[in-house]
C-alpha cells in the first residue's frame, strides 16, 4: 500500500471507527492537528460527520425523528454513521440501512413497528428523486381496444407498496397530516392492525396512502412487469373498475402500454 493510501485509510478509520481511540492513535503517526491543540482538527472532522449524519437522516426520516425525539434520533444517526458509513459522495444516497439497523437495535425492541415506518420513509425519500415520467392519459384508450393480457400500466415515478404487520400508513399520516388521530393510531397499534401503504409521486410531490384491499398484490405484479389481466387476477377483492379512475386521478397510474413496446420505465 502506498504512503498516501495508508494516510488516507488512517484518517478515514479515525472518522468511522467507534470507539475511535485505537484508530486515532494510529493516525497520530501520520499527522498533527491545527489550531491550539493537536487533536482539535480531527475532532472538527468527527463533529462535521456527525452533524451531517443527523441532517441527512432527519431529511429522509422526518417521522421516525419525530417519534424518537431529537436526542435519541441524533444518537441513532451517529450510530448508523459508524455502522454503515456512506459509500457514495451524494449523502442523500446514505441512510437506506436504517430500517434493518433499527430492527437489530436492542434499544428499539419496544417499538417493533419502527423498522416499517423507516421503510416507508425511505421509499418516500427515493420516490422524491425518481426518474420523471410524463403522463400519457390518451394511452388509456388501449384498455378498451386491446387485449388486457397484452397490456401493462404505466405507474408513477417512485411507486412502491410496503406491507407491514403494523398500522404503518396510519402512523405516518397521523404524524404528517394529523389524520387519523393519534388516539386512533394507538387503538390500531394495540390491536396490531396490519396495513399496506402505497407510495408514489404525484407530479413532484411524494404521496402515501393506505392501500386498498388487494392493491398490494396488484401493484406488486404490475411493478414486476406482469400483464394487466393476470396482475388484476392476483386480487379479486380489488374492484379494478373503481380503482383505475382513482389511480389515474391521483397520478398513481399515468397510462397504459403494450407489453411488447416495453414502455415501463
Amino acid at each position, binding site marked *: 500500500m*502506498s*504512503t*498516501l*493510501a495508508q*494516510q*488516507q*485509510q488512517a*484518517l*478515514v*478509520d479515525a*472518522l*468511522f471507527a467507534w470507539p475511535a481511540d485505537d484508530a486515532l492513535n494510529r493516525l497520530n*503517526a*501520520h*499527522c*498533527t*492537528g*491545527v*489550531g*491550539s*491543540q493537536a*487533536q*482539535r*482538527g*480531527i*475532532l*472538527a*472532522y468527527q463533529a*462535521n*460527520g456527525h452533524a*451531517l449524519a443527523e441532517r441527512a437522516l432527519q431529511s429522509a426520516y422526518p417521522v421516525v425523528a419525530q417519534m424518537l425525539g431529537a436526542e435519541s434520533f441524533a444518537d441513532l444517526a451517529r450510530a448508523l454513521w459508524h455502522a454503515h*458509513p*456512506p*459509500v*457514495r*459522495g*451524494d*449523502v*442523500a444516497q*446514505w441512510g437506506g440501512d436504517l430500517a434493518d439497523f433499527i430492527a437489530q437495535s436492542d434499544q428499539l425492541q419496544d417499538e417493533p413497528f419502527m423498522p416499517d415506518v423507516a421503510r416507508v420513509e425511505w421509499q418516500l425519500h427515493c420516490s*422524491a*428523486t*425518481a*426518474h*420523471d*415520467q410524463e403522463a400519457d392519459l390518451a394511452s388509456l384508450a388501449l384498455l378498451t381496444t386491446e387485449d388486457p393480457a397484452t397490456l401493462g400500466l404505466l405507474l408513477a*415515478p417512485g411507486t412502491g407498496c410496503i406491507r407491514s404487520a403494523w398500522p404503518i400508513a396510519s402512523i405516518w399520516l397521523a404524524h404528517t397530516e394529523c389524520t387519523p388521530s393519534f388516539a386512533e393510531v394507538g387503538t390500531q397499534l394495540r390491536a396490531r392492525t396490519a396495513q399496506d401503504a402505497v407510495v408514489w*409521486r404525484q407530479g*413532484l*410531490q411524494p404521496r402515501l396512502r393506505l392501500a386498498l384491499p388487494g392493491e398490494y398484490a396488484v401493484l406488486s405484479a404490475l411493478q414486476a412487469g406482469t400483464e394487466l389481466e393476470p396482475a388484476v387476477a392476483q386480487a379479486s377483492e380489488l374492484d379494478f373498475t373503481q380503482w383505475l379512475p382513482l389511480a389515474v386521478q391521483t397520478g398513481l397510474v399515468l397510462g397504459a402500454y403494450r407489453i411488447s413496446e416495453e414502455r415501463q420505465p
Partner: protein
Amino acid sequence: MPTPHTQMAESEPRQPLHAGLGWRHPHYAQLLEQRPALDFLEVHSENFFAAGGAALAVLERGRKLYPVSLHGVGLSLGSAAGVDPWHLDQLANLVERIDPVRVSDHASFARAPFGDRVVHAADLLPLPFTHEALDVLAANVQRVQDRLQRRFMVENISAYMQWNSAADQTLQETEFLNTLVRRTGCALLVDVNNIYVNALNAHKAGSCADPMAACKSWLEHIDPDAVEELHLAGHCNVNDAHGDIVIDDHGSRVSAPVWELYRHALTCFGAVPTLMEWDTAIPALDVLLDEVARARAVAEQTLGVAA
C-alpha cells in the same frame, strides 16, 4: 522558493466582474420569483444527482434565467482509491443536462477503504502536498476532464490537520496547485476565506507569525492565468474544552480581513468571477445579495471595473 507572479499590469483591459451566489434550498423559490441581478448561480452538484424530482426541476428553471456553475463536494479528487465511477457518471449526466458555465470540485479526498469496502467520508479531507499525492490528484483530475470533455476547476480547501511528510517530498501548497495546473490543464478556483482560515489556524499552532502576510504571499504565488473563479464566505472561531480552532463554516458575513485579501486577489488575478457562499444558518436573501453587491463594489474600487 518559487517566485511570486507579477501582479496584473495596469494596461490590461478591464473586464466587468461577474458576481454570483451560492443558490441553496431556502432561496430556491424566492430567487426564481425575484430574479435579482446576478451574473451566475452556483449549486452543489451532488444536490442534483437525482434522476428526476423537484430539486432538478428547480435547477432547470434557474438555468433558464442564469448561467449556472456546478460546484462539487464529493468527487474525492485526491483519493488513492480513485474517483467513484458512479459519481463521475452522475456529474457527466448533470453537465450534459445543465450546460454549466464552469464545473469544479476540491483538492481533497474522502474515499478510502474502511473494513471490507471503500467508503466516502462526506467531507473535504486534506491531502499531503507530496509528489505522490500530486500524481494521484493529477491522474484523477485528468480522468474527470477526459470524461467531461472540458476544463475543470480545482479549489483549495480549509484543512484542520497537517500530514507529516518528509520535507524533501513536500511542496508548498501553491507550488502543488500550480504544478497540477501545468500537468492537467485544469483551472483553479481560489477560495480566499479558506486561505485565511488555514493561516489563522497555523498562527494558533505557532507556525505562522503574520496570517495576513502569509495569505497575500499565497495569492502572489498562484499562477494568475490559472484562476477562473474566486470564492468568498464567512468563518467562525470555536474555542471549547477541546481547544481553539477556526472553522470554515460559511455561516456569517465575509470578515474584514477576507475582504482585504479579496482586494489583493483581484489585484493578482484581475476581475475573476466571484461567488458568495453561505451554507449554514442561511440568512434572508437580501443579506446574501448585499454581500454580492459589496463584492462588486470592492472590485470597482480595486480595479475600476464596471460591476
